[in-house]
C-alpha cells in the first residue's frame, strides 16, 4: 500500500503537539519558495507506485449496475461508506476496509439487484445472449455468466469461474423452478465477488523498461473507465484490451480520446468535481432557518448541482480554461439559487445558465452558495473555514488541525469589535492562534459581503465590510479579485493536477510520482488549463500506465 509521505510528515510533526512546530508548518502555507517554479526542467524520475487494490466507490458501484444491468433499478439504500483520504473518496476506497456490516450490505445489494432483474422479463431478455430452454440449460446460463460477468468483473471469467457460478444457478433453477431464478442466482455471486468489488491491479513486465512493470491492458482499461466515465469499461474497451491493442501507444491514445468524447465522460468530470471540491458534504448542509430564511433542507442539492454543471460546462461543453471556474460571471441557477443571488428566476423547474448582474462581485465558485454556505457556520459566516477551504482544496496547502486544548471560541461581538473582522482580530493578538489564523482569516475576509448561506450583505453589524487582503504576497480587493488571484496562482494549477492524478489512479500518490505531477502541471499550463486535455495527459502518463514491483506471493506484514 502506498503511503502518502507528504501528509504523513505533517501529521507526525503535529503529533508532537508543539506549538512552534505547528506554527512553522502553518507558515509553510505561504512560503513562496515552496511554490513550484513553473518552468519545464528535468523532472524527477518516476518511481512507479506499488500495485493497489482499489475498492469500487459507491459511485462506481451504482454506475456499473446502470451500465451493465440497465437503468431503472432501485439502487441499494446504503453500502460500505467511502471515507475521504487525501481529500478524495476514490482514494479512501483504496485504503478503507470492508466492515462486517459492509459485507451484509453488499450481500443485500447483490440479492436485491438480482431479484429486480429477474422480475423484469424484458430486462432479462436483453441481458441473455441466448434463450434458455429451461432452468437447467447450462449452456445458455454459461453464456450469460460469461457475457455479463466480463462486464461486471472487467475481465473474462475463467472456465472454472463460469462453471462454479453456473452450478449455483442450476441449483437455484432446480430448487425454485424457473429460468428467471437461475439467472437471478447467477447474478448474486457475480455482484458480490471480490473480482467485482475490487480492482485487482497486479501488473505485468513492461517490455519498454528494463525490469519495469506496467498495468495489464485489462487493468488499464478498468482504471481508465473508472477515471473518465466513473464507471466500468464497455465491451469495445474490453475487446481492445483482450486483443492486446492497448499496449500500443497510439491505440491507447485513441481509446482515451474515445472515452473522453463519449457522453459518459460527464459522469467522470462531475465525480471529480464532486470529490475535489467536497461537494458531497453539501448533503449535510445545516443552517438555522430562523437566521437564514432562504434555507431549506434541499438547498445543498441545488448548490451542489450548480457547481457540477459549471465544471461540466467549462470542461466539456466549452473545452475551456478551468480558471473560469473562479472568474466566470455566469451561474447555473434553479429558482432556489436565483432567489439567493437576487437574480430573476428563469424556469419553474431545472437549471439555467444566467449572467450575474445584480452583484458584480459574485464571481465563479467562490461566489456560489456551495462554497459560501459549506464553509460557514449554521448561524454565521466563518472567514476561518472559508480561508481553510481555499488553502486546502484550491491551493493544496496543508492546514494542520488546531492544537488540542486551545480555546477556539469565536470571540463574541463587543462594543469595540462588532464585525467579524474585528472579532477575529482578537486571534491575531494571541501568538498561538495567530500562527494559523493569519494564513486563513485574511483570505476569508474577502467573502464577508456574503452571509452564511451566500446572500449578499453590504454591511456586517451595521458597518460597511472591508474585504481587502493579501494571499501569498498578492493583494486583492474583494471576492472577485481574490478569485482572479487564485486562478493565476501556480499553486492552484498544481493543486488541480495533484487531485486529478490521485483521483485517476484511485490510491494515495507516492513521493516517487512528484515529477509526474510537475510535468503534468506544466502540460496543463501550456495547454491553456483545459481539464479535458489534462485528463487526456494523465491517462497517457507513465504514472498512470506503470506500476511498481508486485507483492511477493504470500507476503505478510
Amino acid at each position, binding site marked *: *500500500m502506498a503511503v502518502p509521505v507528504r*501528509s*504523513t510528515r*505533517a*501529521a507526525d510533526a*503535529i*503529533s508532537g*503537539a508543539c506549538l512552534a512546530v505547528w506554527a512553522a508548518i502553518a507558515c509553510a502555507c505561504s512560503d513562496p519558495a515552496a511554490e513550484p517554479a513553473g518552468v519545464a526542467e528535468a523532472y524527477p524520475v518516476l518511481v512507479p507506485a506499488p500495485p*493497489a*487494490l482499489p475498492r469500487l466507490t459507491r459511485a462506481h458501484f451504482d454506475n456499473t449496475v446502470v451500465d451493465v444491468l440497465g437503468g431503472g433499478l432501485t439502487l441499494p439504500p*446504503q453500502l460500505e*461508506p467511502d*471515507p475521504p*483520504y*487525501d*481529500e478524495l473518496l476514490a482514494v*479512501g476506497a483504496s*485504503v*478503507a*476496509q*470492508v*466492515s*462486517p*456490516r*459492509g*459485507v*451484509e450490505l453488499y450481500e443485500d445489494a447483490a*440479492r436485491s439487484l438480482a431479484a429486480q432483474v429477474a422480475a423484469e422479463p424484458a430486462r432479462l431478455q436483453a441481458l441473455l445472449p441466448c434463450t434458455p430452454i429451461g432452468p437447467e440449460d447450462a449452456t445458455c446460463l454459461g453464456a450469460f455468466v460469461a457475457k455479463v460477468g466480463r462486464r461486471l468483473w472487467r475481465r473474462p471469467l475463467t472456465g472454472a469461474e463460469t462453471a462454479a457460478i453456473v452450478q*449455483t444457478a442450476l*441449483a*437455484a433453477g432446480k*430448487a*425454485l423452478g424457473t429460468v428467471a431464478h437461475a439467472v437471478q*442466482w447467477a447474478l*448474486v*455471486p457475480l455482484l*458480490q465477488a*471480490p473480482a467485482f468489488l475490487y480492482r*485487482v491491479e*497486479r501488473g505485468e513486465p513492461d517490455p519498454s523498461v528494463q525490469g519495469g512493470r506496467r498495468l495489464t491492458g485489462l487493468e488499464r482499461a478498468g482504471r481508465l473507465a473508472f477515471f473518465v466515465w466513473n464507471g466500468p469499461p464497455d465491451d469495445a474497451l474490453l475487446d481492445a484490451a483482450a486483443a492486446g491493442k492497448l499496449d500500443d501507444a497510439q491505440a491507447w491514445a485513441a481509446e482515451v480520446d474515445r472515452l473522453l468524447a463519449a457522453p459518459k465522460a460527464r459522469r467522470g468530470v462531475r465525480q471529480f468535481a464532486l470529490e475535489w471540491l467536497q461537494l458531497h458534504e453539501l448533503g449535510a448542509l*445545516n443552517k*438555522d*432557518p430562523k437566521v437564514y430564511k432562504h434555507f431549506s433542507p434541499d438547498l445543498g442539492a441545488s448548490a451542489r448541482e450548480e457547481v457540477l454543471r459549471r465544471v461540466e460546462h467549462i470542461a466539456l461543453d466549452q473545452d475551456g480554461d478551468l480558471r473560469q471556474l473562479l472568474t466566470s460571471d455566469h451561474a447555473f441557477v434553479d429558482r432556489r439559487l436565483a432567489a439567493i443571488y437576487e437574480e430573476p428566476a428563469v424556469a419553474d423547474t431545472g437549471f439555467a445558465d444566467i449572467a450575474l448582474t445584480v452583484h458584480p462581485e459574485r464571481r465563479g465558485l467562490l461566489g456560489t452558495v456551495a462554497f459560501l454556505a459549506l464553509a460557514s*457556520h*449554521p*448561524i454565521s459566516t466563518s472567514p476561518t473555514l472559508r480561508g481553510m477551504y481555499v488553502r*486546502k482544496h484550491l491551493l493544496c496547502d496543508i492546514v494542520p*488541525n488546531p492544537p*488540542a*486544548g*486551545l*480555546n477556539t*471560541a*469565536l470571540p*463574541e461581538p463587543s462594543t469595540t469589535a462588532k464585525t467579524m473582522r474585528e472579532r477575529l482580530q482578537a486571534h491575531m493578538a494571541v501568538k498561538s492562534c495567530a500562527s494559523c489564523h493569519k494564513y486563513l482569516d485574511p483570505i476569508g475576509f474577502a467573502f464577508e459581503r456574503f452571509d452564511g448561506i451566500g446572500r449578499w450583505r453590504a454591511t456586517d453589524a451595521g458597518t460597511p465590510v472591508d474585504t481587502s487582503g493579501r494571499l501569498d504576497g498578492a493583494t486583492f480587493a474583494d471576492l472577485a479579485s481574490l478569485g482572479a488571484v487564485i486562478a493565476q496562482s501556480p499553486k492552484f494549477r498544481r493543486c488541480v493536477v495533484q487531485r486529478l492524478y490521485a483521483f485517476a489512479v484511485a490510491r494515495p500518490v507516492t513521493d516517487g510520482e512528484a515529477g509526474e505531477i510537475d510535468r503534468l502541471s506544466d502540460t496543463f499550463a501550456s495547454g491553456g488549463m483545459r481539464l479535458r486535455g489534462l485528463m487526456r495527459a494523465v491517462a497517457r502518463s507513465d504514472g498512470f500506465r506503470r506500476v511498481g514491483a*508486485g*507483492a511477493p506471493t504470500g*507476503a*505478510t*506484514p
Partner: protein
Amino acid sequence: MSLHRRTLLKGLLGGAVVAVGLPPLERFLNAHGTAYAAGGDDGFPRRFGLFFWGNGMLPERWTPKASQADWELSDQLQALAPFKNRLAVITGTKLGVPNDVPHTSGAAGVLSGRPLIVQGSNHSFAGPSLDQLIAAKLGADTRFRSLEFGAKPGDGHSWNGPNSRNPPESSPFALYQRVFVQGFTKPGDTPKIDPTLALRRSVLDAVGQQMQAIRAQVGAADQKRLDQHFEGVRALENRLARLQESPPKLDACKVPATPPADFPDVAGRPQLAEKNKAFAEISAYALACDQVRVFSNWFTAPVNNVLFPGASTGHHELTHNEGNPQPEVHAITLHCIAALAAQLEALAAVQEGAGTLLDHMVVLGTSDVSFGKVHSLEEFPLVLAGSAGGKLKTNVHYRSPASENTSKVLLSICRAVGLDLASFGVDDAQTKDGLGAIEA
C-alpha cells in the same frame, strides 16, 4: 462447531426439502432467558451497550457532589434519576492518549485506549472500539454480531481496526426491518423454510475462496484489508446457518411496534429524541429476543453541529463560542443525557427472571471530550448502568483522587462481560488493572 447438521433444512441442493426437529443447542436460551450453558453466574447471557454523544459536557455541572454511597445526581445527570440505584458514575479520570485531533483523539482514546492514527486529514482508530472488542466474544452466538445505530446520521466510531468501521443505521425503520422482519424467527416459532438460505451460504463460501485467491497476489496492507473483508464474509455465512434453527421460546421476547418510516425535521430541528426512543426500543427487544448481545448507539457524533430544540446554533459551535457558564451547551447536554435515559428505560422495561434486561448487562455512556470548549481529555464523562449480572457495583459515584487512567474503567467493563483480558489500551493509556472501586 459445525452447525450445518443442525439446520432444519437439509439436502436442498439435492432437490429434497426435509425439516428435521433438533434438540436445543447449548448456546440457546431457555424460556426464562437463561442460557443452557455459557451464560453469567445467574444464567443470563452477558450483554453490552454503548451510548455515545458528541462534544462532551460541562464538568462542573456534571460531577456529583459526594462520593460512594451517599452520592447525589448532579445537574446534568438528573434525567437518570429513575435508574440511580443501577448506576456507577466515574469522574476525575483522564485519557492516556495524545490529543492530536481534537474530538476524534478523545473518541479513539476512550473507546480503544489507543492513540488515533493521523494521516493528513484521514483519521483512523488503531484498534477495535470497545463494542467490537466485546462483540468478538459475545457476538459469536447470535444472529447479529453487533448492531450499530444512531439518531443523527453519521459514520459512528464502531471500528473493527484501522480504516474499518461499521456504518451505523440511521433509520429506526430500516433497523426494525433488519432485526424483526427480514429473516426473523421469533424464538419458539418454527422458522419458515427458506430455500435461498443454502444458496446464499454457498455463494458466500465461494466469495470467501475467491478472496483467498486474490490475497496471495496483493501487498501486505491489502492482505489485511482482504482478511477483514473475509472475516465479515465468514461471519455472515455463520449467521445465515442459524436462520433455520429453532431456538426455544423466550418469555422476554416481544416484537416491538413498527417505527415510523420518517422523522421529518420540526421547525428546522431534527427529531433526535424521538428517533432515539424508537432505536432504544428496537435495540432492547433485539437483546431480549437474543438476536444480538452487543449494540452501540451513536446518538450524536464528535464535532456535530446539530441544531437542538431551543438552541440558537449548532452544538459544536456553542461549545466553543457560548460565553460561560454556557447555558445553551448545558441544555444540549441535558438532551443527550435524556437520550441515554431513554435507552436505559427501554432496557429496564424488559423483565428477565427476577430482574430486568438492564440488570443483566452493562451500558457505558460516554463522549469524545469532557469540557468541549477546550477539548479536555481530563474529567472524562463515564456513566455505567447495569451491573452485568452482579459483576459491577451500582448506585455509586467514584471520584478518582489522582486522575486515574480511564482505561481502568474500560477494562472493568470488559472483564464484567466475560472477556479474559490481561490489559486494555497501549502506551500511557494502558492498564493491567480494572477499577476496583466499581468491581463487585
